[in-house]
């Protein structure tokens, strides 16, 4: 997640203090993983150095929370090009579960059991997210759905693998 560009986007609606940025970020995008103050001020000072934000005013007193930041036109272009560019799809080729399955087959342990245990664990989390959706707003549902679809993709891979275990075992141990 690019914290810098997200800050720039939030600043487009008007100048804000660092604390305010952190709070808005946490509420909308933090999902139970709030930013540290260190991250917030490190990000802001980098944006400042790169000319993407500027100080909008410093109130008297001590400490970083006195500063108000505004986005510059270079900052606005930066968000814009970030939003317009595609994210690199992750190929997920280094998967722990894959390693476990192959290792189980190589060492003569039950790969079916490990897949069954993993399914139960995935479903446990999927239930939790499904319950959370019932109480959340649409924006919160969106992030839960994102997680749910990814977990479902894991499970589909897992079922397919479970169906192929006999063939896989023969090939791996040949």
């Amino acid at each position, binding site marked *: 997640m690019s914290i810098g560009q997200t800050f720039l986007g939030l600043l487009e609606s008007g100048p804000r203090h660092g604390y305010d940025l952190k709070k808005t970020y946490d509420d909308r995008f933090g999902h139970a993983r709030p930013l540290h103050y260190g991250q917030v001020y490190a990000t802001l000072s980098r944006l400042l150095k790169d000319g993407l934000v500027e100080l909008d005013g410093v109130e008297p007193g001590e400490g970083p929370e006195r500063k108000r930041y505004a986005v510059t036109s270079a900052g606005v272009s930066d968000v814009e090009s970030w939003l317009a560019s595609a994210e690199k799809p992750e190929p997920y080729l280094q998967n722990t579960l894959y390693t476990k399955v192959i290792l189980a087959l190589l060492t003569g342990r039950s790969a079916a059991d490990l897949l069954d245990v993993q*399914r139960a664990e995935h*479903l446990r989390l*999927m*239930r939790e997210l*499904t319950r959370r959706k019932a109480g959340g707003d649409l924006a919160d549902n969106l992030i839960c759905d994102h997680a749910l679809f990814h977990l479902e993709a894991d*499970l*589909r891979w897992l*079922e397919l693998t479970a169906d192929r275990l006999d063939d896989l075992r023969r090939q791996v141990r040949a």
Partner: protein
Amino acid sequence: MTGQPLLEGDGLHKAFGPTKALDGASIAIRAGEIVAIMGPSGSGKSTLLHCLAGIVRPDSGHVRYQGAEISAMTDGERSALRRTQFGFVFQFGQLVPELTCLENIALPLRMEGVRRREAEARAAEWLDRLDLADVGSKRPGEVSGGQGQRVAVARALVTRPRAVFADEPTGALDSLNGERVMRLLTEAARETGAAVVLVTHEARVAGYSDREIVVRDGRTRDIAREMEEAL
């Protein structure tokens, strides 16, 4: 498991010719709980559901509803049990095409001998509850797949059954409509205290359940419970 389960299948075997559809499957459903039955295609999920619902008679093993052996009942007793205690939602083809959606929902009540006016008044409450207010007077052929499934959910719940059997209830729907059907089905079941036996191969659908049982080659596994017991 404490107390008597609402519904219980114990050591179920069922063969269709040479095919062993169930090969020692066991499951226990408590009142009001939502249990997903998962597993690969052909593993015996639907056969298990049919045995539990008294639609298919197992070759051996026991099915008990509130402690009473279903296979010991007469055909008449079994169909009365299905009519008054159970509700059903299938993937498709379950609504009577000649009746309106409202009449379809009212049908199980009519079969119990409830008068038309009262049956349709009760059915109309379910139309509202399942966001179906505008489809009551339409026939099943004139509504969308998602609306049709919600009508089927209403029809399954209108008699306030103790158990609802749902076999791939969202199998023919897109994600958004599938979600809506699952949300309404599970909310309504929780409100009325009905247990749900939910057959699905989709994990997102199983996400609406309280726990899952996996069927493979006609045998059941309760992995979450095994994991707990192993601790």
